């Protein structure tokens, strides 16, 4: 396990694969007999869908075993529940808490102060990351959070400072400050998932700047859904220079006649057009890669699984991450 890192926050533009990458990372971190906790905070049951299990309750539950033995636990954190827990823990206010809930007060408090909601969510994740058993050993080797998207992440994590400011005294104030200490420490890293496309990369670049500005540690950039480069410009130019030779080769491979208008010959133009689109895309991807490289972050790549991500696919992605990422 590299250094002190215990809390891995995974963000990225919507739909780039935050949930998938967070799950793959939790699996990779659990390899060889370790134990990790994968948490989600947006009440969407994305983890349950991915692991093809029942909706997760507000309870840490084992959901998968990692290669080489090791366990991944999962938890869907719910802000209202977390607040009730918190009231119970510090004030033994189980029944009063329930009354507050009936009146809509809990909903009100967690809604009107979005910052408060966030501190409850991150607070729970930090608590799990720090939790120790009676022998003083960490209960989890790592906690991985499937976090809100890049556009909201700095606010979400940094918001604790805001809450600490809003609530000028009292237990929430203290709680927010202690959560903030964990989040800005070397034990926490924020990873960004991106695609090699204009908008996600732009968001990543902006997000990294914001996170750094807020004193949060940025870990890695994970480039997801990478498609293989099957032909480069030079190869394309060479091939395109002699369509007759292409027709002949296609014909030789049994795809029909090579003379003008014959089956193999008619394939040449559309195949070259596809290749042009391919190299054009590769060129755009190169500019995106260059923009990412300027961030000076470790960069890991995951392939596009054409058939979508099922459980087997998830393990495959986790294996890929494990190979590249010194965890």
């Amino acid at each position, binding site marked *: 396990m590299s250094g002190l890192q215990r809390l891995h926050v995974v963000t990225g533009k*919507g*739909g780039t694969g935050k949930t998938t990458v967070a799950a793959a990372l939790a699996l990779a971190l659990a390899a060889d007999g370790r134990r990790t906790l994968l948490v989600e905070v947006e009440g969407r049951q994305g983890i349950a869908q991915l692991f093809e299990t029942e909706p997760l309750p507000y309870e840490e539950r084992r959901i998968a075993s990692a290669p080489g033995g090791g366990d991944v636990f999962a938890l869907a954190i719910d802000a209202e529940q977390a607040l009730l827990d918190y*009231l119970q823990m510090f*004030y033994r206010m189980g029944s*009063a808490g329930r*009354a*507050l809930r009936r009146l*809509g007060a809990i*909903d*009100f408090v967690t809604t*009107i*102060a*979005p*910052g408060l909601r966030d501190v409850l969510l991150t607070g729970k994740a930090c608590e799990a990351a720090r939790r120790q058993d009676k022998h003083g050993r960490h209960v989890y080797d790592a906690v991985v959070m499937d976090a809100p998207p890049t556009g*909201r992440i700095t606010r979400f994590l940094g918001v604790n400072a805001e809450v600490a400011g*809003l*609530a000028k005294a*009292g*237990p*929430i104030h203290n709680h927010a400050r202690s959560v903030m200490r964990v989040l800005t420490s070397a034990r926490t890293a924020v990873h960004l998932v991106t695609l090699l*496309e*204009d*908008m996600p990369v732009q968001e990543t670049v902006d997000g990294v700047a914001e996170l750094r500005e807020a004193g949060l540690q940025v870990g890695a950039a994970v480039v997801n859904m990478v498609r293989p480069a099957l*032909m480069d410009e030079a*190869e*394309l130019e*060479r*091939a*395109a220079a*002699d369509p*007759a*030779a*292409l*027709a*002949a*080769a*296609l*014909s*030789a*491979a*049994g*795809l029909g*006649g*090579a*003379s003008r208008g*014959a089956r193999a010959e008619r*394939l040449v*133009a*559309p*195949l070259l057009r*596809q*290749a042009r*689109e*391919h190299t*054009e*895309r590769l060129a*755009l991807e190169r500019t995106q890669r260059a923009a990412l490289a300027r961030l000076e972050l470790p960069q890991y790549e995951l392939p596009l699984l*054409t*058939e*979508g991500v099922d459980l087997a696919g998830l393990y495959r992605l986790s294996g890929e991450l494990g190979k590249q990422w010194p965890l």
Partner: protein
Amino acid sequence: MSLDTAPRLDADALLDDPQTRIVVCCGAGGVGKTTTAAALGVRAAERGRRVVVLTIDPAKRLAQSMGIDALDNSPRQVEGIEGPGELYAMMLDMKRTFDEIVEAHAEGDRARAILENPFYQSLSAGFAGTQEYMAMEKLGQLRARDSWDLIIVDTPPSRSALDFLDAPKRLGSFLDGRFIRLLTAPAKAGGRAGMKFLNVGMSMMTGTLGKLLGASLLRDVQTFVAAMDTLFGGFRTRAEATYRLLQAPGTAFLVVATPERDALREAAYFVERLEADRMPLAGLVLNRVHESGAAQLSAERALAAAETLDERGVDDAGSGAKSAGAAGTDTASTGGTDTADTTGGTGGTDSTGTEGAAALLRLHAERMQVLAHERRTRDRFAALHPEVPVTQVTALPGDVHDLAGLRDVAELLTAQEAPGA
């Protein structure tokens, strides 16, 4: 049931129809809602309508090229429209829209008190649903101005397409909620019988919350709620009015999706929801669809042919060290005869031709696998909703960031022939 039998969406007819006053583009995040909205705006203007496009989160370069990257929260005319109509566009500034409502409904000092309250600030910047609510609000305002004969609305980048319809109500019911009423006017909310209990409840609650959050925080909340009180009713009434506007004839919804499982699942939810709420669905825009000009050649055959060529390439290179393997000889030799029959004088470039053709075939196989996957997902949607008219937009190799790109997308969107296939 497959997509090929689905009715075709005639987007030009929709845009040309003077009865069409509002077009709402919705769908899951990243599928191309903003692009579609902008492309339709360009198209409609170039066909003669006076259009305004309300975008929420355009890509930077797209916003720049339309001249709407400066945030002033009101529409500007887009230069470069080629045709009889006019195009205006704007990018929504959520906080500013919220501020404007406050300013319009509260007097000087009161407005200032609200705007400066820390709770207002966090609500206006971050409440889940504020963006959706403000998009609706802006739509209501644009419609009320009556300066355009067509309004095209993009929707916020929510995870779920339904958020756009649900969030305003959620904000409304939150602002109208029991607890807020208690905080603002405890006696009034309780009525005669409930008053005593509620007052006890209230003091216990404010006591608890005060302990938890610090007394000053609770005071901030109370001040905020009191100051907002008169606005709340207004919020809800306005949200309801805009919602009704969406149900009125003259409004059309376009659901945008990519041919992927998640996006189409969202699209299906949305279609069902529109039906339930009696909102008019014009059709589905299937965006970023892959095609092939050589679809008659299957992935399997292309791969097999590529392998044949690989083996041949090794033979041609004549490097005796590397054996081509016996399996390939048969096909290679028949292939050889075929070549000799049909072409002449390619001897010199044969090995480049072979390598090039093998690479082209591999690329094609990959493309065909994508196509097959997309077709399966699309067919699943079509089976669920065979009645929904569909149009397809090809995945362009680059992104869409200028008027020319928008015109290309619009051209594909409105084409009456299914491309490729």
